[in-house]
């Protein structure tokens, strides 16, 4: 069934994903080769094997972009790493990984959060929306994505998924009434290319356009 799938057997369009998948698999294999098994790690840390067993994967059910997943995750996996490494939703970016840049911004139960500073296992039963799930579907972009393109709201584009997720939340929260308010409520998203002026213009256009976001 399409609505409950284990995280490691997600099927993708093999063609377009080929290079990305190769990179991921090769780095995964390297990582595995150098990582000792849990029992060995536990012995090194002077813990008993029972505890080591408990370190193993925890069941997790959550929905991402409307799809339900039944997964097994290691407790220390952040929501960001789950999305990128296990579900292969690489639109959400890892910038600083310490909650300082906002590149990892996603919506959980409709609220924007930093996915790098929360554990995947803490999202049991939650609905997650990432940049991949923002648009209404088909070839159509979300109005905020259109506005970012129109106003050149980026240069390198790395912070853009987080900026857009945050921008949509900013309007939904009712904090996009003035330039000053937008700047304040978008301050959790850093753009090192400095596209702030254009980002603010994009948000203002969507806000003033009165479209449903």
């Amino acid at each position, binding site marked *: 069934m399409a609505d409950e799938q284990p995280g490691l057997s997600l099927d993708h369009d093999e063609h377009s994903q080929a290079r990305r998948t190769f990179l991921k698999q090769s780095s995964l294999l390297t990582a595995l080769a150098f990582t000792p098994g849990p029992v060995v790690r536990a012995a090194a840390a002077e*813990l008993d094997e029972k505890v080591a067993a408990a370190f193993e994967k925890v069941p997790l059910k959550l929905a991402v972009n409307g799809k339900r997943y039944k997964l097994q995750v290691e407790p*220390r996996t952040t929501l960001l790493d789950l999305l990128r490494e296990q579900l292969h939703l690489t639109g959400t970016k890892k910038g600083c990984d*310490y*909650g300082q840049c906002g590149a990892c911004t996603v919506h959980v139960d409709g609220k924007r959060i930093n996915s790098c*500073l929360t*554990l995947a296992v803490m999202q049991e039963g939650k609905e997650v929306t990432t940049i991949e799930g923002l648009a209404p579907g088909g070839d159509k972009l979300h109005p905020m994505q259109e506005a970012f393109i129109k106003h050149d709201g980026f240069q390198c584009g790395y912070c853009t998924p987080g900026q857009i997720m945050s921008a949509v939340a900013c309007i939904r929260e009712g904090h996009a009434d003035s330039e000053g308010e937008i700047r304040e409520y978008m301050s*959790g998203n850093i753009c090192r290319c400095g596209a702030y002026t254009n980002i603010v213009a994009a948000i203002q256009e969507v806000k003033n356009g009165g479209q449903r976001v």
Partner: protein
Amino acid sequence: MNQFQYVRASKPKAAIEALARDPNAQFIAGGTNLLDLMKRGVMAPQKLIDINKLPLDKIERQEGNIRIGALALNGAVAEDKLVLEKLPLLAQALNAGASAQLRNMATVGGNMLQRTRCPYFYDTAMPCNKREPGTGCGALEGYNRMHAIFGFSDKCIAVHPSDMSVALAALDATVLVSGPKGDRRIPFAELHRLPGDQPHIDTTLGAGELITAVEVPDNAFTRHVHYLKVRERASYAFALVSVAAALQLDGSTIKDARLAMGGVAHKPWRLADAEKTLVGKPATDETFRQAAEVAMRGAKAFQHNAYKLKLGPNSIVQALKNAAAA
């Protein structure tokens, strides 16, 4: 990040018992500070007890106070109608902290318990008595521009980073705690410690204790309030100095005042003597300057934070002016 066991608690009692049983366990709520510290190897709990499912997130009007559950999110509290109407100083302080995303994750209890942002505490290659007791203080002779000017010791000169706590200190809040020995109430001023000889202990919470709520007594500081936060960019940065100012005015005469500072000590720094000098005086710049002078008595700077001796009183005057004009 180190490996750890993960358990979810559905009742406060179970959470408290689990924490009391295991000295290497930690509660996790929002996780915005704990996970940050775990990724850097500053903290390495062997067990995390997820308390997010505990029913502790309500904001309610009670007789004589407003009770805010420990798991209420910072963003939710800052936007709450009751808080905006009755505790605008708290709402301002919350909105001055972190970013919209982090405020949607961080809880009220976690905000109080966040660790210092002293770079020597964060850098595991540096000595730090708070992180590793007995190793010394890197900041004392180091790059100490963010550091304390009040209440420090020769073991630690770190500051407490919370904005919310500065407002709660000014508003005489009480922290409600449940633990293995039962429930107790801690006046906000007694929750955080000064570093002394034991800077690794941030608060007066006992083993296995869980913060369940904070109560803010009814007060008349609903209009003339201001939370001033001075930082190195316009938003999303920790305070160099912050001031929570609240006035009750009768015409232009100050009937009552509350004043506290952030970014200057190991705990939110209540300025009780300065408050006393304000009461009964006209709300003028001259009065505010006198209060600021009293507030700064006993302040001492290190090599790189002497600017705080000027920034501090100037910020107090500005916050009081803004509060009076609000």
